[in-house]
């Protein structure tokens, strides 16, 4: 069975990345926005792994980086959700459109 070429994977990751961006731009729900950011980070992870495996198999930098990214993403999500919960307390909504007091 022939191996999947790198370009396919890069294509996948890029799609994932832009889907994430699209989601971030369009969805009003903060949680969903967080999820789309996760998507973007995941595409990054895919990139790292793929590059590592295909181009530089002799070192494991990419893999390590991925692990760190995953952890940090988790931390980020944790803090973000905490903030969002606190925001919900005051605004009674997690619609991003409702949190636009400060402008101009």
């Amino acid at each position, binding site marked *: 069975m022939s191996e999947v070429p790198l370009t396919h994977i890069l294509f996948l990751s890029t799609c994932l990345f832009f889907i994430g961006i699209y989601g971030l731009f369009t969805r009003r729900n903060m949680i969903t926005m967080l999820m789309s950011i996760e998507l973007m980070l995941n595409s990054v992870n895919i990139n790292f792994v793929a590059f590592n495996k295909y181009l530089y198999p002799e*070192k494991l930098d990419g893999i390590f980086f991925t692990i*760190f990214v995953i952890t940090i993403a988790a931390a980020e999500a944790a803090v973000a959700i905490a903030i969002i919960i606190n925001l919900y307390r*005051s605004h009674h909504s997690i619609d991003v459109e409702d949190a636009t007091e400060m402008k101009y």
Partner: protein
Amino acid sequence: MLNEYLQVLKFEWMLIAIIFILLFIKVGSKEWKNETLLYSINFLLLANLIVGFFYNLPGSLFNGMFHSNDLIFLQKSILNLGVYLISLIAYPWLKEHKHLLEFYILLLSTLLGMFFMISSGNLLIFYLGLELSTIPLAALANFDLEKRKSSEAAMKMIISSAFSSALMLFGISLLYGVTGSLFFNEIALLIHGGPMEIFIFILILGGFSFKMSVVPFHLWTADVYEGAPVAVTAYLSVISKSAILFIFMTVMFTVFRNLEPQWYFMIFLMSVLTILIGNLFAIRQDNMKRFLAFSSIAQVGFILIGLSGVSKMGMASVIYFLLIYLFSNIAAFGVISIVSASTGKENVSDFKGFYKTNPFLSWVLAIALFSLAGVPPTAGFFGKFFLIMAGAERGNYVWIIFAALNMIISFYYYLRVVKTMFMDENENPIQKILVPALPKLAMMICLLGIICTGFLSWIYETIYNLCNF
């Protein structure tokens, strides 16, 4: 070997120690009074600051992932100083606050992140430091839990910073793909200005610009500054900005050295935009913190000018300016935090007739603003003059004239605040405010810095000599 780990990492160890002390106090059953806590913490920070000047061993660890030299030590000391001053001016706000320890723990961990970021020699460490310095900050921005604005600010900050770091990370991943290395010095050799590299560079530049709040990546700044507690705002505008600028210079001057013509061009565009937009928005602001946010955006534009003259002079003048900027900005925020802590008023219009009731605070704020505006005899004049001078060395006079003309606009809005305090009549001005000892100390230090940093040329000269360009 071991003491190398101790000394090269000394700044980090110090912070970690303080953080752990605070943690122990937190988990410990004993109830501490806020006052005592604050005084002792400030004492710790002062010790941290002082120790920072001794027993520094330049070197690099983890085969080059982490390295530090005298310049980096200096930068870290500057950050330490800033944090110390900020914690001093935060006193009136924290005195009543019940999550005081958490505040410091988070604050110091972000500082730790910055330290790692500054002395990183590797994209991984850099990324870790960056995130470590960002995520807790979002939590800090939300530290006035009950305030609507605070939480909104935090939300905006965490989401947009996550987005920006995602983009930057994407760039880093591609960079890894192109060069196969995460080490700065290795990458530097492998970059030659191909289109892919330019694209990657722009992604990473975007990430940096977001942190430095350069137009058009600046939009989060104003809102977050306005919403966050004053101390946090000061921290954002001074410490994290300085840290990111330090590392930004390293990255620009080492990693992307070969792309220098390209990035000079981009920096030029962005700086022009930044100065203009920052000024134009700052004119209209009524909220003090928001106004300072936009003014700080404009300042970054000027810093980019200095940075663009890729030279020892430029590097030195940027660091020198950041030092002065630190003093001036913290002085300004100090006054604002005291006023807002004791009266909750944060609008420019509230400051009408402020001079009648609070001459001392008014003078502090005025001098700070003069220094920000770059008026002699304050140090701001020297800082700004040298920045533009460094930029002018490249002979790009369109940029210089543009900046010079924009300085007039910035004068307008700085003087506007001074005018409000000194000249406008007001039947019920802000009452006389009693300034506690610690903030007063902070202001005195800041004033001293604002006045002296300019005249004592050896400060500039030391920085200049440290700059390993």
